[in-house]
Structures are given as structure tokens and as C-alpha cells.
């Protein structure tokens, strides 16, 4: 899965890091920071600690000045590191947006003056409004998102998709959508503009990656609630501890209590939460998918059923030659050579596939010079082929047509053919294929088996989806027999044959009624109702405006298999959040064992027994915990940006693995890390 088509910047590129560091300070502004409650609380208590420290140094005087100063510094570092994480994610998005913006050059548009006639005026592209009609000719840049209303053209979309091969866009077809910033390579088209200025896909992508349009998704909101709840409870724990300490006859410096609070509240996930979200959106955009809302990405991670069109997604769009079946009395070589001769000048995908099969698998070769005249396929004869020098005729075509041709009797039927051939014809049809007959010099030589070729690797992908618990349903207009064969070969879980847009919509509704989340992709106007009904609707960018309006994700590459990538990105986003939350909470266990004995050892020397890490002194213990707490944010930034490793597997296996790595790991790692920091602190005499 090549997601990154645009080069993703290296995780912490020097230039980005510099800009992000400055941004981290700017983000200290409480007016914006309050949106991140955990870090906001950290900032507030850091401020309180600093004021208390300054008061102690200047007016009241007191103990532990050195340690208190260091704690205050690390409290601020904690806030800055969290801000930095967000800033890095945003900076990466901004850098990407820059590269997108470069494609969004101001161009001149030839706008029709009136609906009637072809008279145009030149206006800047930024002044185009919805409904304006422009003419774009070869070599020109399409001035805005729109739909082709007249003509056909090949278009270079590499500016958007990175794909160098140009694509065909045609009015009235399912592929009539064009994107601003792409270039017309040949011909001339009339385009009706569909996007307001500043609301094109490109603009939307730019806003998405810059984080400007980021709204919290439902799951993110639920998680934020959990984090706020934990923050409040730890505020209460710390506050009550002050009173319990008083009861126990000890006093704890306020700054130490603040250190305890900050280590306990989930600063790790709190600091990384928005970075994870931005990075997830970033990955989506890099996969050339524009999300209309973050909700759609999350829903993608939740999908139960995937509806996939057969053509283009599961199979290549065209049938291809798969096998040759010689008639009795004919050798394979004779058949292959005849088939090759009959297809030499056949430019259709089927014809090309016959040539490829004959030359590649059977090493057949013929001299093109032997062909005197090639015969084009016509709907009337339903045959094509070639007349050779010397008058010999080679033909291939529909079985009926060839039989009629060889018998010289237009009404000839299969009953006159050898039973072996009739049998083979039946077998091919049953397998969902199409038989073509080949004749040379008035004699039937055999059959070519044309079949739907399943895209390589698609079976494995469906297996992967099944492991994730997602059912795949193939949608096809084929008859049930053919559909069943292809479904079995492709490894989909279910299929819908002879599908119509209404049946498709009905299927989605019935699945949703069972409580399942359904995803589908589509491009045509008749897909629009189904796209709108589906929980996740991926519209192809090449599709009609109606389809694009109905979908909640738009794939700029117009690649139907992209749905699978979207699902993976959605899941990875959720998993990254969940895993780091677990890690963050699990970390608290070790921090308690570091700080609680340190705070109360003066009152109850027996609590030394809880100092399982054998930290050097109470001061170094507190300092180590707060340093660990700050540094772990920095240490996890790459993970937050990259996303947690996600291999599709069953939910149980996934849960077991993540619980082990982030749950158990989250308990164990800080014990080791805090001990190491403590050793260092004592070695260099910081406390």
C-alpha cells in the first residue's frame, strides 16, 4: 500500500523543528491552550509553582531552593514539549499545504459571456463563481473544480494525484469531474464551475492539513472527557493529600505537591492527542483522500461492511484472454497462431490481451507482413480478424457468429458443432467467462477463454479485511452465476448480482438496520443516494458532482480500492490514541512509587519500604519523576506522528498485543527510566 505519494517530510526535519519550537512558545497563550484541558492545567500549576518559588527565593526563604527551581523549569518544559508536539504535526501539515498551494496558481479563465454562443472573456480564476462556464483548451490549466458539460479531453492530473499518466474526462459520462489546477493535454472542453472560490478540493485539502478545519471527532471528545475526569480526580487526590499530610504531622512544599499532580495527570496523551489527530488527517491527505469531516475517518475505522463494485475494484475493467482451447483435430500451436493473426491489429483490450497471452505464454510469433488486410470488429458481423496474402481468412468472434461463418449458413447452431466444443463453451460460460471462437480458412480451430481478471493482490486484501472483522460485498451487474464465480475467486464474503442503484440502496439500508456501519465507493450520479446513505461514502474525484456532493470522503486518485486504505488509516488513528492513553495511565504506578515515599519519608521513615526503585534522595526522586514525565512526551512524538504499528488482525490479538506493549510496558518502562534519570541526577549532583 503505497500511501505516501507526496514525500512525507522526515519525522523531525531541522527546518520544521525550528519553526515548531518557536510555535511551542506561542502556544503558551492560555486563550488557545485551554482547548487542551490537561496541558492547560499543567500550565496553570506551573505558573503557581513559579510564583511560589520566586516568593520563596526573594521574600520568605526556605529549603530545597535548587530542586524547586528545577521542578518549575521542568513543569514549563512539560507544557512546551506538549505544545511542540502539536506544532510539529501542524508544521508538517503546513509544509505539505505549501506544496499543494504551489499547484494552485492564479490562471486566466476563458469564461463564456452568455449561455448561448462561444464568446468568452478572460477573467482571473479567483473570480470564478459557481455556475460559470469556462472553455479550457489543450495546454491550459483548468481554473477551478467543475464538471465537463461538453466535449472530451485527456487531462494531466499529476499536480493533484502525482500520477503522470493522463486521464480521460468526458461530458455526460461517469467521469465528468475535473479539478482545478490540473492541465488539459488534448482537445478542448467546456467546464461548468462547481466550487466557490476558496472552496475547491485543493483549498479544502490545504485547510485540512493545516489543521485549521480540525474539529474534535466524537471519539476524541469521549477520550478528552476521560482525560478531564482523570485530571479532576488527581487534583482531588493531590489536594486531599495535603490535608492528610497535615493530619500526619508533616508539611509538604507546595511545589512538590504540584510536581506530584503534574506527573499523575495524563500529560503524555494530553500533550500528544492533537498531534495524533493532525497526523492522522495528514496521512489521509497524503493518500490523496479529502475528508469532508474527521467523523468520516473515524467511522471508516468502525466499518463492518464494505460494498465494492466489481469492475475497476475487484477486476480490471475489461475481460482478458486467459486460455486457448483447441477443437478436436487442431493443435494448440495452430490455434494460438490463428488467434494471434486475428488479433494483431485489434486495438481493443481484449485483442491486446490475446496477443499478450499468445506471445508470452505460448511464445507464438507471426510475420505481420503476411496480413493483407485487417478486418475491424463490427456489431453486424460480431467478428474481427484478418485477410492474409493469398486470400486465406482468419476470424475470431462470438461463438454463434463464427459457427455461422464456418458453416456458411447464417442459421447454423451449436448442435452442428463437435460435442467437445459445445461442452467447452458451456464450461466457460459457467465459469463466468466469455468464449470467443477462432476460425481459419473456413475451419473452426477452437476457443479463446476470455475472463474477468481479478486484480493481483486483491484476494490478500480481502483476507486482511476479514481479519479486521470487515465483510466485503461485491456489487456487480453480472448474472448470479458469473458473479458467484468471480466472488469465489476474489475471496469476497458475499456478492450482489444484477445490482441496480435501488437494490444497492436497499442493501445498505438493511445492513444499517442490523446496526452495521457500511462503507462504499461510487462515482456515478445513480450512486449518489447510496453514497449519501452509507456511513462512509468515498466518491471518486472523476465522478459526477452529485456523487461528490453525496460522499463524505473524496478520493482524488479515483481508485476504488482506496477505501481499504481509508479504513486502515481510521483504525490506526484510534489505536494510536488508545494505546498512548493506556501507556499514560499505566505510567502513574511507577510515579507513585517514586514520589509518595519521597514526600512522606520525613514523617514516616517506614515508607522507605515503598521506595522500590531505591532512588537516591527524596529530592532526586521527585525531580526524576517530573523529568521523565516531560521527556516521555518528546520521546513519543515520532510514534504519535507515525501512528502505532498496526497489522490487521483479530480484535483479541490486537488487544492482547497492545495491552502487553502499552499497558504492561507502560507500567515497567517508567520504573527503569526514572531509576536511570535518578542515577544521572545524583551522579552530576543536580539534587
Amino acid at each position: 500500500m503505497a500511501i505516501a505519494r507526496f514525500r512525507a517530510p522526515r519525522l523531525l526535519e531541522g527546518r520544521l523543528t525550528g519553526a515548531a519550537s518557536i510555535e511551542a512558545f506561542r502556544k503558551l497563550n492560555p486563550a488557545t491552550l485551554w482547548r487542551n484541558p490537561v496541558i492547560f492545567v499543567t500550565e496553570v500549576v506551573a505558573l503557581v509553582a513559579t510564583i511560589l518559588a520566586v516568593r520563596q527565593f526573594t521574600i520568605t526563604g526556605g529549603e530545597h531552593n535548587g530542586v524547586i527551581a528545577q521542578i518549575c523549569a521542568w513543569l514549563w518544559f512539560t507544557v512546551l514539549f506538549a505544545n511542540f508536539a502539536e506544532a510539529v504535526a501542524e508544521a508538517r501539515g503546513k509544509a505539505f499545504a505549501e506544496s499543494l498551494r504551489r499547484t494552485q496558481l492564479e490562471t486566466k479563465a476563458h469564461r463564456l459571456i452568455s449561455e448561448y454562443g462561444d464568446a468568452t472573456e478572460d477573467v482571473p480564476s479567483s473570480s470564478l463563481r459557481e455556475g460559470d462556464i469556462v472553455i479550457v483548451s489543450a495546454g491550459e490549466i483548468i481554473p477551478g473544480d467543475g464538471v465537463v458539460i461538453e466535449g472530451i479531453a485527456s487531462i494531466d492530473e499529476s499536480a493533484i494525484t502525482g500520477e503522470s499518466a493522463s486521464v480521460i474526462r468526458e461530458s455526460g459520462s461517469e467521469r465528468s469531474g475535473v479539478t482545478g489546477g490540473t492541465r488539459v493535454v488534448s482537445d478542448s472542453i467546456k467546464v461548468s464551475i462547481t466550487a466557490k472560490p476558496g472552496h475547491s478540493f485543493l483549498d479544502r485539502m490545504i485547510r485540512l492539513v493545516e489543521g485549521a478545519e480540525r474539529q474534535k471527532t466524537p471519539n476524541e471528545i469521549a477520550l478528552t472527557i476521560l482525560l478531564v475526569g482523570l485530571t479532576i480526580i488527581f487534583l482531588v487526590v493531590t489536594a486531599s493529600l495535603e490535608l492528610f499530610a497535615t493530619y500526619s504531622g508533616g508539611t509538604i512544599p507546595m511545589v512538590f505537591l504540584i510536581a506530584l499532580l503534574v506527573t499523575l495527570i495524563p500529560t503524555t496523551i494530553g500533550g500528544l492527542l492533537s498531534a495524533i489527530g493532525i497526523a492522522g488527517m495528514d496521512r489521509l491527505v497524503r493518500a490523496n483522500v479529502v475528508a469532508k469531516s474527521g467523523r468520516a475517518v473515524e467511522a471508516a475505522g468502525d466499518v463492518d461492511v464494505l460494498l465494492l463494485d466489481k469492475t475497476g475494484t475487484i477486476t480490471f475493467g475489461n475481460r482478458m484472454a486467459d486460455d486457448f482451447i483447441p477443437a478436436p483435430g487442431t493443435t494448440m500451436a495452430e490455434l494460438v497462431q490463428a488467434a494471434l493473426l486475428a488479433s494483431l491489429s485489434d486495438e481493443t483490450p481484449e485483442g491486446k490481451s490475446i496477443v499478450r497471452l499468445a506471445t508470452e505464454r505460448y511464445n507464438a510469433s507471426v510475420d505481420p507482413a503476411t496480413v493483407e488486410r485487417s478486418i475491424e470488429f463490427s456489431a453486424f458481423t460480431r467478428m474481427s480478424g484478418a485477410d492474409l496474402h493469398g486470400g486465406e481468412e482468419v476470424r475470431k468472434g462470438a461463438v454463434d457468429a463464427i459457427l455461422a461463418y464456418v458453416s456458411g449458413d447464417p442459421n447454423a447452431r451449436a448442435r452442428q458443432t463437435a460435442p467437445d466444443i459445445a461442452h467447452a463453451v458451456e464450461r466457460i460460460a459457467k465459469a463466468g467467462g466469455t468464449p470467443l471462437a477462432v476460425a481459419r480458412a473456413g475451419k473452426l480451430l477452437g476457443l479463446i477463454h476470455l475472463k474477468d481478471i481479478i486484480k493481483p493482490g486483491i484476494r490478500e486484501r480481502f483476507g486482511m479485511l476479514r481479519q479486521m472483522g470487515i465483510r466485503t460485498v461485491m456489487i456487480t451487474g453480472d448474472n448470479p452465476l458469473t458473479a458467484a464465480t468471480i466472488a469465489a475467486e476474489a475471496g469476497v464474503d458475499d456478492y450482489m448480482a444484477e445490482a441496480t442503484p435501488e437494490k444497492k440502496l436497499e442493501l445498505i439500508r438493511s445492513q444499517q438496520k442490523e446496526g452495521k456501519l457500511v462503507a462504499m465507493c461510487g462515482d456515478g450520479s445513480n450512486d449518489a443516494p447510496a453514497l449519501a446513505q452509507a456511513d462512509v461514502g468515498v466518491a471518486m474525484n472523476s465522478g459526477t458532482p452529485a456523487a461528490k456532493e453525496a460522499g463524505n470522503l473524496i478520493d482524488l486518485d479515483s481508485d476504488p480500492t482506496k477505501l481499504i486504505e481509508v479504513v486502515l488509516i481510521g483504525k490506526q488513528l484510534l489505536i494510536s490514541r488508545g494505546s498512548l492513553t493506556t501507556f499514560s495511565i499505566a505510567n502513574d504506578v511507577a510515579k507513585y512509587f517514586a514520589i509518595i515515599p519521597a514526600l512522606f519519608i520525613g514523617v514516616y521513615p517506614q515508607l522507605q519500604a515503598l521506595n522500590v526503585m531505591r532512588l537516591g534522595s527524596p529530592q532526586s526522586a521527585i525531580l526524576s519523576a517530573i523529568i521523565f514525565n516531560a521527556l516521555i512526551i518528546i520521546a513519543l512524538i515520532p510514534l504519535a506522528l507515525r501512528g502505532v504499528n498496526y497489522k490487521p488482525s483479530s480484535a483479541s490479538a490486537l488487544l492482547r498485543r497492545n495491552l502487553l506493549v502499552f499497558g504492561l510496558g507502560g507500567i515497567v518502562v517508567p520504573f527503569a527510566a526514572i531509576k536511570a534519570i535518578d542515577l544521572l541526577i545524583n551522579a552530576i549532583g543536580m539534587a
Partner: protein
Amino acid sequence: MHTTDYLQFAAYAAIILATTQPLGRYMAALFSGQKTFLSPILQPVERLIYAICGVQENAEHSWKRYAGHLLLFALIGTITTYAILRLQHYLPFNPMGLPGVPPDLAMNTAVSFNTNTDWQAYSGEGTLSYFSQMTGLAVHNFLSAATGLAVAIAVIRGFARKSTKTIGNFYVDLTRGILYILLPISIVGALILVWQGVPQTIGGSVDAQTLEGARQTIVLGPVASQEVIKELGTNGGGFFNANSAHPFENPTPLSNFLENLLIFLIPAALVDTFGRMIGRRRQAYAIYGAMGILFIFTLSIAYFAEAMPNPALTQIAGYDPTQGNMEGKEVRFGLADSVLWAVTTSGSACGAVNAMFDSFMPLAGMVPLVNIMLGCIIFGGVGAGLYGMLLHVVIAVFIAGLMVGRTPEYVGKKIESREVKLALFALLATTAGTLILSSIASVTPAGVAGLGSAGPHGLTEILYAFASTDANNGSSFAGLSDNNIFYNVMLAATMLMGRFIVIVPILAIAGSFAAKKTVPTSYGAFPTDTGLFVALLIAVIVIIGGLTFFPALALGPIVEHFALSAGMGY
């Protein structure tokens, strides 16, 4: 450490396991509106009650109406109890001529019994008339237990139903709980206890001439009837101040064993009812498993800590270290029965005691404290244990769901921000309340004035009082003199908070689940009926609870444990 101890534990577990399914099935049938074997006798009574009270049997309530009726019912009950206690000297059945109960104590007691806490700031035999005991307290032993049961059933319906607004009729659930479950078992149980020697009379006390020639007043009363519901309804409010350590409440090892069984009887069976009513019995086994593992774990800690010789006594001549710590225990029950009782009474929200935790070894005494701090969810109070556990399940499922990259779902219900918010509020508001109020008590002169001990042990007493009232457990660590205005008011507030700040959000969750579609089990969602989930659930309970209470515990029982090991007592 004796083989007989283990045999007793095993027999206890075996009987609870054996009763779980039959009683669970019975309750599931009852609350689904099906006929039970008692229906021919009880249905006419039930119909009569509805006719008198004007209850429409088939009119179901939305969660808001359900909660509204419940709150109103509790309010009326509390006011009535308060009035009875204040006016008991004008009311009948007061052979000893006891005066009216002072306002703060009456308020505390009224709240205590209406919240199923049964915190006893009073001494039963010396303060309350028989009328007060029976109509003020024993009645609420039934009503408050049935209320908890009704909430649990409403919550189960929330999980079981789909796309509907209603979760049942509070009065119907309440009536059925009392009529078909609590009363029949209580009647049978009381007869057995009378056979074992528990008094049941409304005559006055008996004056006796002791051997030394002194005169002694022996208080009797309707003890047996109140004793059964005390355990069965996980109430815990004893007729006598010494509770189930008193020979009239709990005369023999057999009565002790039976009373102990009654504590877990309904809470354990209710988990099975949950599985049956949602049609996914394996889900219930997972919850049962989590509760069972926590039970075995806490019982082991308490037992081994208690069976160790007390280091403070080993130097004393004549001390038999194999006896373990027998201080504060009834010799007729011995160490094993006392420890088992301590764990069940704290795991459930019962709060009846047959030994004084104050005299337990620090770690053994910490076990009931921790059980209570976790919210009494090891089978728990009648109804309260299950719905309390389901709050933890919501949080555990939410965290697990995030880790597998899916919006979490539990028994077919998607858990979204509304449910997370409500569950967190219910869990955290009460624990925060416990910490805030107990820390205030620990530094207030009125709060420390009543302490039986100084230092860490005193702190444990305070923590225990607040945790116990918050979890509606009602057991006391003993040692704390709590019948004063300060504690009566503070603890009444804690009881109300612990009861209703949990019930209202959980009913809201039930309402929101009932309104949701039920999602078919998908391979992509992680299963919540496996060992892995049980482990996760336990981890969530222990870690969240531990993170909240560890600092307080460190200054209480933990430091005392290390001090005692070093030969220092408080």
C-alpha cells in the same frame, strides 16, 4: 492456616455457585414478566397492591420518570423514617420507654437506612424502640434493597432492549423484588435462625440475677426477622450495636455460615440474571469471573495477613503464634469465619460485621477498606454491585475499544461520549467526594476528636467511615466515635452522594442504551466474554481505584503495616 479453614471457604464458594443459576433464572423470569412457581400464591397479592397504590402494571417509564419516581420514593421514605425516630416516645412498642432520637442522629439514621447503607451511628438496643426498629429500619431494609434491585433490573433492560424509550416500571420492579424474592427468603431464613436460638419477640427485656448477685438487663426483641434481611438485602444494620458478633444476632457457627451465605446470595445470582435477560450468558460469566477472582484474591490477602502471628505479641510468653491474630474476634467463629465475613461484607455493600476490623492486622484490615473503596463491586450490594461493576465495564470497554481501533461496544451497544461521561461522573464524583470529605475530617478538630487511635490507624478509621458510607456499605472500622453532629452530617451527605450520584447516571446510561440499536457481534470488535477482557476489567478496577486511593492508603494501613513489622504500634 488450617485445612478446615480451606474447607469452609470451599464450601462457601460451592454453595454460592450452586445457588447462582437457579436464583438467577428465577429472577430473570420474574422481571421479564413470566410466571414463576410462586405466582399462583403471590400474584393476587401483587395485583391487590397495584390496585391499592394505583400502579398500572404495564405502564413503563422512561429513564427520567423511573429515576424521578425512585428519588421521590426515597425522599418520602427518608422523611417518614426521620419522623418515626424523632417521635418514637409517642409511638407504640416502646417497652423500655426510650426517648425520641436527637435530630442529627435521626437524620443520619433515616438517610442511612433509605440508602441501603445501614451505617449505625446509634446503638440499636439503647436508642431505638421496637417500633422504630421494625417500621423505621426493618421496612427500609426491604425497600432500599428492592430499590437497588430495581435499578439493576432497569439497567439490564437498557442493555437488553433496542430502539425504545422505556426501561420498566419502578413500582412494579420494587413490588416484585420484595414480594417474590426478599420476603420468601426472609421468612424461611428467620425460621432457621429462630431454630438456632435467635430471639423473636416484641416483649420487653429480661432482668437477670448474675452469679455475683448483680442485676443485668438482657435486651431481647424481634431480632430474627431483622437479621435475615440485614444480610439478604446487604443492609448490615444490626439490631444490636455489636451487630453479627452479638450472640443474639448470630449465636452459632451454623447461623454464622448461613448469614454469611445470605450476603452473597442475591448479588451473585443477579449477575446470572443479567446474562439471561440480555441473552448473552457468557458476558455474565465474564463479570462473575472478574468478581470471583477479586474475591479469592482479597480473601487470600486478608486470611494470610491475619493468620500470621502478630509481631507485637510474639515476645509475650504464652502467645501461641499458630492462632494468628485473634484479637477482636468471637471465638465461636474463629479466624477463618471472621476473615471470610470481613471480605464478603465489604465486597458486597452489606456492612454487617461479626468481628471488629479495628483489631485486624493492618493489611487484613486494609482489605475491607480497599474493597469498599473500589465501590463494593465484588458481587456487591443487592443491585448496586452489578450496576457499579457495569460502570467499570463501560470504562474498560472504552479503553479497550480505543486500543483495537473501533468505537467500543458492549453487548451490542456502542459506547459513545455520553455514556463515558455519565460513567466517569458516577465513578469519580463519589470517590472524589470520599477523598475531599475525609481529608477535611482529618484536619478538623471535630473530625479528629472522636478517633479511637492516633497516627495512621486513626487515619484508617476516618477513611473507612467515609469510604463505607460512600459505597453504601455501612460497616464500621470501629474505634471511631461517630455519633456527633459533625460525623452525622458529613456521613449522611456521603451516603446520599454515594447512592444517588451513582443511581441517576447509571439509569441515564440505561436509558441511552435502551434507545440505541443493538449491533450484531462482529469479529472486528473485541470479545468481552474472554479471559483477556476479565483481566483488563480487573486491571482497570485496580489501577483506577489504586491511583485514586494509594496516597491515602500509604499514610494509613500501609505505613502501619511497615511500622508494626518494625515493632511499632499505634
